[in-house]
């Protein structure tokens, strides 16, 4: 017993192992059931063998019986008489018998001794043409009767209509359908005014109802060209609405700002009913558009974090554009029924203040354009297409980076792409039965072509609502192309955050207003300087039509008649809040929105121009430049810039001209000559040779001189000094 050995006995595996899990457990396949086993055995039947047997049958019919009996004996041995394959075997046997008989018949027929096969004539179809003719005639008559009845009814209604001179409802409905979206509801015809198909996401519906105008009403209006169709627009969309943009100096008392809320006089409701449905629908759609625009702007005004917060009061948004200048955006909606939008006092206030400040048509137009651009961007995703909707990180991964940057990014990102997600997801879930990952990807990107069909239809919708303008007010909106490839380019969170920064409508319109003011101010400065300064001419060429937030002006400073000799040109880029001046020498100066800076710069440029021009004229006259300094240290301190001077000598060196230019004083010209005429030998300076030294400079009274302008005077001066005296 001591050295007994443990022997473990394990039954051999009866069943096959299907799987071994990670913890080592073996999962067996279940043993086959009886029917499964049978099916497995049936698979083993060799059908090619039976074909051979069939050949044998053809030769000697009796053998088949033997085979069958053989099978029978096998079956009997296998199991009882009620074998599951009994019916199959019976059918096979019957078929075999039939085939055997057929083979026998064929072989007998082939011998042609006992049996002959003759072709059989097909049975003649009874053909009676007159019956057919009558049948057709009857059917045609029935169809014609239906058509004629319809024609009669139509004709009757038409004659009645023309007799009463009524417009046709159906023709009107057809026209309506050509221009508006209609659908048949359960009770009547409903239409949709909203811009949703064009990409709007405003949640107010623009449903209107189409009804047939009452008989008497149309009859009454018939003479006046009334329509047989009546549209019922919801009350909140009735009336006239517009967005008014107003730029004004900051007003201390709030009451005066009421001037914006204004509209046409009352009684519009009655007038409106008389309008044609087309105009009514257009007006209602405009109301909807203005409401969407204002709602968006108001939401942005509240969200935006400006240094001077934007204010939203009632239906007015106030934003500070530049210090002291306000931008007022108001929604004016006059629906004839309730006058809650128009304050009673505002109407009279408008009378007083209406003339004072004009509202800005350009900015209003730009606002409309901007919203249209947003709509457009909503429907027109940039390529590459199906990948437009990056999903953003999953919820769990959002939690992984809990610090503020990441969460804001994720929130922003998911919000931005929610819309595109819907569209792309739908596309994904309906397709995609492909075989390998990488072919799927390839197909995924070629699906763009399919998408372009959708795009074409979208383009048609877009063309219906987006009238072409030569206006470049469309900023980069919507998910940019860069953002679409953010995923595949593995952009990190900083890049994504950078990309998610988007300009809101309000920001853009404020920028445009700022630019408008900057442009107007610089125009004003340049014009006043050109008016004030006559001597060098100041010519400015504006290039202001390219962009709503950028324009540039080229300023040429030259003297009349001397523009070939010297010309100073500088370019000023007018931006939103700053000016960028590029001077002739290539130096770039950035100026703020304060006007005085531009003014000083132009004045400095003018005096600089005069100095260089005098030197150029001197060169032409053969005079020699002895010295020049643009920043002179002597003299009183200048309020702006420095005094500059130059010293010119005549060709034979006996005369000198000194020019001093101080922006605050103007230009002074001095001359001196040698040998000096007033040289008298004194006790200290006795020698005659000292008379060759230049004498004292004497100032010239420029205003008394002849000549059209400073350069002309200098030319004359040089000419007369050059001649030998």
């Amino acid at each position, binding site marked *: 017993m001591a050295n007994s050995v443990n022997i473990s006995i394990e039954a051999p595996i009866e069943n096959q192992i299907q799987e*071994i*899990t*990670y*913890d*080592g457990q073996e999962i067996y396949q279940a043993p086959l059931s009886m029917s499964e086993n049978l099916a497995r055995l049936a698979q083993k039947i060799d059908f090619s063998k039976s074909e051979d047997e069939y050949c044998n049958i053809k030769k000697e019919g009796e053998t088949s019986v033997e085979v069958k009996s053989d099978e029978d004996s096998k079956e009997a041995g296998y199991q009882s008489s009620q074998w599951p394959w009994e019916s199959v075997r019976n059918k096979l046997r019957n078929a075999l018998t039939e085939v055997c008989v057929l083979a026998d018949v064929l072989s007998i027929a082939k011998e042609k001794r006992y049996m002959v096969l003759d072709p059989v004539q097909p049975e003649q179809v009874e053909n009676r043409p007159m019956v057919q003719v009558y049948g057709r005639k009857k059917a045609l008559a029935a169809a014609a009767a239906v058509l004629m009845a319809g024609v009669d009814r139509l004709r009757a209604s038409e004659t009645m209509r023309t007799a009463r001179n009524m417009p046709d409802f159906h023709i009107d409905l057809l026209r309506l359908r050509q221009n508006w979206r209609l659908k048949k509801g359960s009770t009547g015809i409903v239409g949709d005014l909203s811009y949703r198909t064009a990409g709007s996401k405003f949640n107010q519906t623009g449903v209107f109802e189409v009804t047939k105008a009452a008989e008497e009403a149309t009859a009454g209006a018939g003479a006046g060209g009334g329509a047989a169709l009546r549209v019922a627009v919801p009350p909140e969309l009735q009336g006239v609405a517009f967005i008014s943009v107003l730029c004004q100096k900051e007003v201390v008392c709030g009451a005066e700002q009421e001037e914006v809320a204004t509209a046409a006089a009352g009684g519009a409701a009655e007038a409106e009913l008389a309008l044609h449905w087309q105009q009514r629908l257009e007006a209602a759609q405009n109301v909807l558009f203005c409401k969407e625009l204002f709602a968006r702007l108001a939401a942005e005004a509240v969200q935006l974090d400006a240094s001077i917060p934007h204010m939203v009061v009632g239906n007015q948004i106030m934003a500070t554009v530049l210090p002291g200048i306000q931008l007022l955006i108001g929604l004016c909606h006059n629906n004839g029924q309730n006058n809650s939008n128009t304050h009673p006092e505002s109407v009279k206030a408008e009378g007083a203040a209406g003339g004072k400040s004009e509202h800005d048509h350009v900015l209003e137009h730009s606002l409309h354009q901007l919203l249209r651009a947003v709509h457009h961007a909503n429907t027109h995703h940039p390529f590459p297409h*199906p*990948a437009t*909707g*990056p*999903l*953003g*990180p*999953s919820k*769990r*991964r*959002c*939690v*992984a*980076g*809990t*610090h503020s*940057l*990441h969460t804001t*990014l*994720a929130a922003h*990102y998911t919000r931005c792409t929610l819309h595109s997600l819907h569209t*792309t*997801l739908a596309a*994904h*879930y309906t397709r*995609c039965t*492909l*075989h*390998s*990952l*990488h072919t*799927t*990807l390839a197909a*995924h990107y070629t699906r763009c072509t399919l998408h372009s069909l959708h795009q074409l239809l979208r383009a048609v919708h877009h063309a219906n609502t987006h009238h072409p303008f030569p206006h470049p007010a469309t900023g980069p909106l919507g998910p940019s192309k860069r953002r679409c490839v*953010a*995923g*595949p*380019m*593995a*952009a*990190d*969170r900083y890049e*994504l955050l950078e990309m998610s920064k988007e300009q809101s409508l309000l920001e853009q319109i404020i920028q445009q207003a700022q630019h408008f003011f900057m442009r107007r101010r610089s125009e004003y400065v340049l014009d006043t300087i050109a008016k004030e300064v006559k001597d060098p001419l100041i010519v400015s060429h504006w290039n202001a039509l390219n962009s709503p937030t950028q324009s540039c002006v080229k300023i040429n400073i030259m003297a009349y008649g001397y523009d070939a000799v010297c010309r100073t040109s500088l370019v000023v880029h007018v931006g939103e809040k700053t000016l960028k001046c590029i001077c002739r020498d290539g130096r770039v100066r950035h100026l703020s929105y304060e006007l005085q800076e531009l003014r000083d710069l132009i004045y400095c440029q003018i005096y600089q121009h005069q100095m260089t021009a005098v030197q150029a004229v001197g060169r032409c006259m053969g005079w020699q430049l002895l010295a020049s300094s643009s920043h002179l240290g002597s003299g009183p301190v200048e309020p702006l810039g420095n005094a500059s001077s130059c010293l010119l000598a005549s060709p034979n060196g006996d005369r000198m001209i000194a020019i001093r230019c101080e922006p605050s004083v103007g230009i002074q010209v001095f001359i001196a000559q040698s040998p000096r005429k007033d040289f008298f030998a004194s006790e200290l300076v006795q020698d005659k040779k000292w008379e060759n030294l230049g004498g004292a400079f004497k100032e010239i009274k420029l205003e008394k001189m002849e000549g059209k302008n400073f350069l002309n005077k200098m030319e004359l001066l040089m000419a007369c000094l050059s001649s030998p005296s």
Partner: protein
Amino acid sequence: MGVTVLQQYPVPEHKTGTYVIELLTKRILALGATQQGQFLVDCESYLSLPQMGSTKTVHILHNSEQPASVFSILESGTKNIHVIADGLFDLLMMKLSQHYTSKKQTKIESKGPRFELGDFCVKFGSVTMNQNFKGILIEVEYRPCVMANAVWGLLREFLQGLLGPSITVQPPQHLLSRMNEIYAPIDTIYQYLEHFSAYRKVTGLRSA
């Protein structure tokens, strides 16, 4: 995006992963780093079904550093093919479930705090597979440089200083061949995949 080096950190006997991470956190905070949230890198592997011929594995990885991207690496014998796509790729994989089956048991992730120290970004990740702790991975990124060759010395010194002399710091296998190339986010993913595969093998003996 700079050069990133992934380094395994051994967990001593009778110590938990949290203890080691806390220890490292104390060390790096003492160096003057600031914690900047958490990070997460996860990896899920899909096996192709036998009908498609030779078995291929697709690894799907996400990195919280690139929140909008999904990285996928297709292992087909000798060559690895990677595709970087946006988040929709996850849904695509769902649709491909009849060709690629997910091995749920092998979903592995590295998760932990993220620190910034000057130009360095350091992440201490505890690797878990099915909630089972596997080990600790330390990721150090030097952000101003994109050439591994130029910055490897600096990174090694930093790692050596941070982890102590007992750890030998070697350049990652994946980077060896591409020391002179521009570093891309996918290189980080390859490093993670290398380590994840190693972790899976250590415990995956039974399933073999």
